């Protein structure tokens, strides 16, 4: 198992991405079944690695039998397998949602069998790229996977109508700038140390500590990955991208895309480069920018009039919170950051699937369009309410525990940064209450007639269910997971923390 699964985890989605579009020549049903089956197999592989890493310790896998530092290594510990499970799991829901045909944001993204096959291939490619970023232990390989995932994401963003193409192009510019900055930084690191392997890098960095080029390398890598992670003030690409992406892809991209980059930032800055002076300073800056991002994202989310745009700004706030945890760097803060990645991915995926579907069925994106939905589709709305409560941080949802860990870490850290982080997280919860209650109040307590921000006759809405089944199933499933993750928060903490502590200990210990 431990010899086969690591390779399969990355190879399966990449091979599937090439195969699935070809199946479109057979029939829609075959394409769907194959894509769903592949995603389920990938999830099974991720879960197998998760269990194996938890039971028998981290797995080091040399690709092609070439050991590091010469070959490319994959590395599976509590952290990377957790994110891999998250990505693979969200992809299953997204693949299910891809059956959703018509979308207000794109005249039927999956209109022909070939188009649907290609979009399913793009999703598999995106998953392969993200899993590669999560698994790899080689900094150049990380760049390649970053670009693979980005290219697939641009395709999915542009699969809607014309606005999607504009948003995708702007995302492409930002993403390529990010990738080039990162690659430039990797060039500096390679020139300094002559290695691309993360463990080897960490061992050699102390000997070049005095070199000014190291500072340049750290800054370039940090800025590059921060753009991808939408760290304030480098978040400019995010709102349009999330809003104009067709719903099935938006649920997936909004849930995991930026988080995987934040994970890469955690790996490189928090683990490999943390021992250097420049790394420590950049982490401190990341912490402060995270605090600012939490506040700006929350305030601008309140200011939005469209529900999906509000969710996008709320994501910027959430990414700030994750990067607060990365910046603090204590074991408790890292737990909070990772837990918030999981909690926010589940809740935000649920909300984007739901809000995207409602935007289509109710023919509009204002909170007023949600009026009366509570009585028309109580189960769907209950699920969306659970996700919203998790975003606010109400127990026993997952969002409560991630905020609890991050608040504890802020108290533990103390000092001005600790106080500011504490205040920002509390304030962001209050802001989230404001902007989510506006939508939930409309859904549960208003009738379509008295919604103030909706023009036109409510009776003119297209008939049909609020959410078609391809979207309703992911929405309800994710809400259940939000609750389960909250209830089983303690075992999670026990599983992830030891690996992080032994990982940083391994890095800071002198090389054997």
């Amino acid at each position: 198992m431990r010899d086969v699964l690591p390779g399969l985890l990355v190879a399966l989605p990449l091979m599937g991405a090439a195969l699935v579009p070809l199946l479109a020549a057979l029939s829609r049903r075959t394409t769907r079944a194959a894509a769903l089956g592949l995603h389920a197999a990938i999830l099974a592989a991720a879960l197998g690695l998760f269990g194996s890493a938890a039971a028998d310790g981290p797995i080091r896998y040399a690709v092609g039998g070439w050991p590091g530092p010469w070959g490319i290594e994959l590395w599976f510990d509590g952290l990377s397998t957790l994110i891999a499970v998250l990505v693979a799991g969200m992809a299953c829901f997204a693949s299910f949602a891809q059956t959703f045909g018509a979308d207000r944001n794109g005249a039927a993204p999956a209109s022909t069998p070939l188009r649907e096959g290609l979009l399913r291939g793009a999703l598999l490619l995106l998953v392969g790229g993200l899993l590669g970023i999560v698994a790899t232990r080689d900094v150049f390989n990380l760049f390649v996977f970053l670009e693979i995932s980005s290219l697939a994401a641009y395709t999915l963003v542009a699969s809607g109508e014309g606005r999607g193409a504009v948003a995708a192009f702007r995302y492409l510019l930002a993403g390529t700038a990010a990738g080039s900055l990162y690659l430039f930084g990797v060039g500096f690191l390679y020139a300094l140390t002559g290695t691309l392997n993360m463990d080897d890098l960490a061992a050699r960095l102390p000997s070049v500590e005095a070199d000014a080029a190291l500072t340049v390398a750290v800054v370039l890598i940090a800025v590059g990955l921060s753009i991808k992670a939408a760290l304030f003030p480098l978040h400019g690409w995010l709102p349009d991208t999330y809003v104009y992406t067709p719903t099935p892809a938006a649920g997936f991209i909004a849930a995991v895309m930026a988080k995987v980059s934040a994970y890469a930032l955690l790996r490189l800055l928090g683990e490999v480069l943390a021992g250097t002076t420049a790394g420590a300073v950049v982490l401190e800056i990341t912490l402060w920018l995270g605090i600012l991002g939490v506040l700006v994202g929350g305030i601008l989310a309140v200011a939005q009039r469209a529900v999906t745009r509000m969710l996008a700004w709320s994501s910027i706030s959430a990414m700030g919170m994750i990067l607060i945890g990365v910046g603090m760097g204590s074991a408790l803060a890292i737990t909070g950051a990772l837990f918030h990645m999981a909690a926010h991915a589940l809740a935000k995926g649920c909300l984007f699937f739901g809000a995207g579907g409602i935007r289509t069925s109710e023919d509009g994106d204002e909170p007023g369009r949600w009026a009366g939905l509570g009585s028309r589709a109580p189960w769907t709305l209950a699920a969306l309410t659970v996700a919203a409560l998790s975003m606010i941080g109400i127990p026993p949802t997952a969002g409560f525990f991630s905020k609890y860990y991050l608040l504890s870490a802020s108290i533990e850290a103390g000092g001005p940064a600790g106080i500011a982080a504490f205040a920002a997280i509390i304030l962001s919860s209050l802001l989230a209450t404001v902007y989510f209650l506006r939508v939930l109040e409309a859904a549960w307590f208003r009738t379509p007639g008295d919604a103030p921000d909706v023009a036109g006759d409510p009776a003119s809405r297209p008939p049909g269910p609020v959410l078609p089944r391809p979207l309703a199933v992911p929405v309800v499933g994710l809400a259940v997971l939000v609750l389960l993750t909250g209830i089983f928060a303690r075992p999670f903490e026990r599983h992830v923390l030891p690996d992080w502590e032994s990982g940083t200990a391994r890095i800071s210990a002198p090389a054997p």
Partner: protein
Amino acid sequence: MTTYAFAAALFTIGLAGMALLPNLLRKLLAMNVMQVAVIVFFVSLAFKDGATVPILGQGGAPVAAEFMNPLPHTLMLTAIVVSVSTTGLALGLLVRVRSRFETLNERRLLDRLR
């Protein structure tokens, strides 16, 4: 050193062009300049005067000083492939943007999106 400064200058020009130019196609060209800057940096990193490709010659123990490091050049093959696919995808997007909005000017485009 000169080539490094050249790469840095090229990168800055590209980045500034992406931020400041009004036309999306020009932005794309600026993006290519930026990508080429990174390639120039890596290629010049591995260059050594008087050295050759690392293939063992006629007998004798190999001397590291006689060979260039092939790895950065190999990495750049991959980076060039990445750059080509990104450019191709971007051009495809621009064709769609142009046919739908009949402009590639960013400000006019954003006005039309409202």
